[in-house]
């Protein structure tokens, strides 16, 4: 299911809830629309900036290019490189699997590949300013740092289990 269809399902569900709320309490529903619209407008410039930045990263520093750099023989270094590559990449998890598959096929260390996928989904260097704006810098930095370290540790555990 692509992201557009997922969004459409979300939107239909939310619209139905609004329809129900409008019928029961029009004033509350109008207030909810106002709150949602205001939050969205406040964050829209930041969202636009983040997406534009994603485009720059994709074009000037594509994952395929970084992938070449981390085909190193040093295991610990490749583990860190895998996690860092995942952290600076952005996109649906679906996009990380083929890249990770290529890495494994080319003989990359499995823990490094696992760290790459985990960091891809859970750590967001590019979205960090957005996360900090919402939750505050302290939470954003702690969460991303801890998750990055955890991605490497879980990668190592995975390597031990398999």
């Amino acid at each position: 299911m692509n992201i557009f269809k997922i969004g459409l399902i979300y939107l239909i569900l939310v619209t139905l809830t609004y329809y129900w709320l409008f019928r029961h309490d029009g004033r509350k529903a109008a207030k909810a629309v106002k709150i949602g619209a205001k939050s969205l407008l406040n964050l829209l410039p930041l969202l636009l900036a983040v997406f534009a930045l994603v485009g720059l990263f994709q074009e000037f520093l594509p994952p395929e290019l970084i992938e070449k750099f981390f085909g190193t023989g040093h295991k610990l270094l490749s583990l860190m490189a895998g996690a860092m590559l995942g952290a600076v990449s952005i996109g649906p998890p679906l996009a990380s699997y083929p890249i990770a598959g290529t890495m494994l096929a080319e003989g990359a260390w499995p823990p490094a590949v696992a760290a790459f996928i985990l960091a891809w989904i859970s750590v967001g260097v590019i979205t960090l300013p957005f996360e900090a704006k919402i939750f505050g810098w302290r939470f954003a930095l702690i969460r991303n740092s801890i998750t990055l370290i955890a991605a490497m540790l879980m990668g190592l555990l995975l390597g031990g289990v398999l």
Partner: protein
Amino acid sequence: MSKFNSILRWWLRQRMLWMVTCLYLWAWSVSPVKAFAALTYGIHLFASVLIIIVAVFALTGLIKVKIGRDFISSLLGYGSGVKGLLIALVCGTLMIGPAYVIFPLLMSVKRLGARWAVVAIVLVAWAIKPQMLPIEAQFLGFPFALVRTGLIIIMAIPLGLFIEWLMPDERGSAKFYVKENVSGKKLKCGTKQEA
């Protein structure tokens, strides 16, 4: 005039947008073709998640208006115990789409009394993708996909609690409240909603 000033001030506050604009000017000077391709990629990506973003913000409004602070506090607050943490784990697992679109929604739930661990667990559990498991297995093999998913299920709650432990303790702050009954038994607690 004052409205114009406030709009101007609002634009000047958008530091991230200015920074990215400067980066694009640099990119344009290096390679106009690549800069244009980057902008097109960004716009396409934004367009693809726009619907989900609108839906999430609409849901944020609904939650703020419809769901009470007491309800969130008792379900996801500090007094909710293991139940709240497990709910966060299930929510993070089942929710789909990019994690960053859910940030505003999570913060509104947090302001309504949810604990930091709940926010952190949802974001960690985001990497559990049961619906994607067959695709992941196709590229990386079933053992890899299953062990990776299992590890996150095991680690999500300890990680969330550790992240919360590193945050300031809200239970001692003025924002935090605890409701007790006459015998002193804790009924519910959470953070007071910011005005």
